[in-house]
């Protein structure tokens, strides 16, 4: 009973993800692309839920739908044009795109076919947050800290750029 519902949910979510991702690429107006990107991210969170990864689903919503889309929105607002009708123009390179997509699909297909997919025998643990935290702060502590430092550097860089502009304005 539950298996049927999960399969149905998977195909429904997969269709939403693929459809919205296509719209992100194909729409001419970049604002509509961002909104479909948010739909795509939320549907991805749904996919995590079908895998019993509720913490990852919440992270997906918070970080991607809630923050990454907002960053794109900031970008749009800062380069506002009179007519937003044709702002997403990087989608007319069909031939080059087809080649790259075919290559990516081939690599993914090959890897998917050769990977021995072992489904774990034990049930998914109820509470995944603790185990994620433990792995992050023990086995993967160096990548975790490097990512943190990278973000810090980006933050300092942004503050520096903002300060610089202000100093120039005062000199004029």
């Amino acid at each position, binding site marked *: 009973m539950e298996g049927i519902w999960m399969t149905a949910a998977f195909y429904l979510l997969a269709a939403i993800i693929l459809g919205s991702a296509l719209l992100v690429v194909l729409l001419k107006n970049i604002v509509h692309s961002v909104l479909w990107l948010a739909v795509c991210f939320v549907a991805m969170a749904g996919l995590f839920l079908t895998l019993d990864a*509720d913490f990852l689903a919440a992270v997906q919503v918070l970080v991607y739908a809630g923050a990454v889309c907002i960053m794109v929105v900031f970008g749009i607002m800062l380069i506002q044009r009179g007519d937003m009708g044709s702002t997403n123009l990087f989608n007319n390179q069909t031939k080059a795109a087809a080649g790259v997509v075919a290559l990516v699909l081939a690599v993914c297909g090959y890897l998917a076919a050769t990977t021995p997919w072992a489904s774990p025998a034990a049930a998914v643990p109820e509470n995944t947050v603790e185990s994620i935290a433990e792995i992050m702060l023990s086995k993967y502590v160096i990548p975790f800290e490097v990512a943190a430092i990278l973000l810090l550097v980006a933050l300092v860089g942004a503050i520096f750029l903002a300060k610089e502009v202000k100093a120039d304005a005062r000199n004029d």
Partner: protein
Amino acid sequence: MGENIFTGIAAGLRTYLAGAGVPPLASEFIVMVVKLLAVIIFVSLNVVWLVYMERKVAAYIQCRIGPNRVGPKGLLQTVADVVKLLAKEIIIPRRVDKIVYLAAPVLVFVPPMMAFAVIPWGEGMAPIDLNIGVFYVLAVASLSTIIFWMGGWSSNNKYSLVGGMRVVAQMVSYELPLVLSLLGVIMLTGTLSITEIVNAQRGTWFIFAQPLAFLIYFIAGVSEVNRTPFDLVEGESEIIAGPYTEYSGMGYAMYMLAEYGSMMVISCMCTIMFLGGWLAPFGWTFLPSWFWFFIKVYAMIFIFMWIRWTYPRIRVDQLMGFGWKVLVPLSLANIFVTGVGMYIYRAIGW
């Protein structure tokens, strides 16, 4: 007395369905639907009377009487207002982005409604008891920003656009202290489950253990729901009504009702994280747990309204400076002090 009214109704419904020969999975599903519908209906009706409460509070603060004509003590005033707004024409200006323009007021109610799914209204009365409840509420609430911006951008009006931009900047800036202030409580309890956080406050409410976090959370919460003194988003004297400028009738009303819905979410979270949730103070258990929860939530809502009618609006640069230069460092310091304090407590063996 009355403690088990709601849990009793759920249990009774379960026994009835089991007696009627409904399979357990289907009966659980029906009970869940009934629970969520009850919450949705309660919240939607409640926001209507929150508007009434706002007008009454405003009136008494300004030495007036407030609405007192429709119904006893004016209690049906906002019902009449909602009926009027439902009947009004929804005007769609010529050059708006039609679908986004109409979708925004519909979607704006979704994030607060989703957050209510995990709020425990009393002991054992959370519709869904997630073990990452706090994180879920934060994640869902972060979706509102883009929906306000949808309304502001699609209206194709300069006031709406400025308002939409202010929404994005303000809500993103204040989300950071909002989340960081809750970390102190989560460090003390070591859990993200709302039920466990409330149960951990049986000894002391966290407002006494984390007073700074409570203040930061409350201030950032006022800003997240765009209320005075942080209501630059709809600063009437500058940008008419911000993102809502072009909306009429029920479209406008949906934004207003969503604001009260979000205010209720923030009040509920304040109650759960800092004021002991459904726990009775001083062991006064003669009132049921859900009654205590509502007393605390409405007290928080009253403070929201009190602040709105007492303080003037601040400037945009003051808003940003206060958020990034005061609230964020303070909330980081709070996390640091909490961590060090926990180790000192453990070292001296309390």
